[in-house]
């Protein structure tokens, strides 16, 4: 079941500059395995201890997998998976006192 995976700029070094790749995966977990097979280093960039890293958002079509079944979220033929870095930050804590 081929699904398209959109690769964000910081990971395109691992895909030889490709912005989109295809994998035959039926779950997000399997997608990680196949991305690692085809583009070594991808698993470490995306996950830690089998879980998607904090500050990395994964969407299946328009849905955030955190609100689906996380790594066990099922994928079907024609789905598009987007990998998007979270946007976060914060002020200087030392200046609060």
């Amino acid at each position, binding site marked *: 079941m081929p699904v398209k995976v959109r690769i964000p700029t910081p990971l395109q*070094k691992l895909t030889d500059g490709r912005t989109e790749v295809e994998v035959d995966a039926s779950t997000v977990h399997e997608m990680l395995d196949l991305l690692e097979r085809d583009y070594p280093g991808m698993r*470490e960039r995306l996950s830690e201890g089998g879980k998607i890293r904090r*500050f990395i958002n994964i969407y299946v079509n328009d849905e955030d997998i955190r609100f689906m079944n996380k790594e066990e979220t099922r994928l079907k033929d024609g789905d598009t998976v987007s990998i998007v870095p*979270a946007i976060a*930050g914060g002020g*200087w804590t030392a200046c*609060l006192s």
Partner: protein
Amino acid sequence: MALLRIPAEDVRKIIDHCKAAYPDEACGMLAGLDGSVKKVYCMKNAMPGPVYYEMDPEEQFRVMKDIRAAGLELIGIFHSHPSSPAHPSATDVERAYWPGTLYPNYPGVVYVIVSLMDMSRPVVKGYSIEQGSVNEVELLSE
């Protein structure tokens, strides 16, 4: 120094959004082309606090799609520092890179920070955070 052009009315919109969230941090995105801001997105801080912001993942994705659909690009990310200077904090720098690397999450993006230390005189500054260094970007308000 690199340059980001931003209409004065958009600067006011950003400051108003930041003041409305005070004492918590506020955030949003700047869409445009060729270093000129065309549209400001005032967004929700999904984890509001006085020294932290994190965009709501669903809203972030929706806005990024909206930007692309409008033929624009994400050229800036803004947030407030309610009680600290308009300079990237350690958290800002850490979060600008892919976890565990020095690959910028959004290459070319200008991080705009609004300091509300003096509420009557907000300070707005821009920075690039790439290749392990922080460099000020001139904000040209027109």
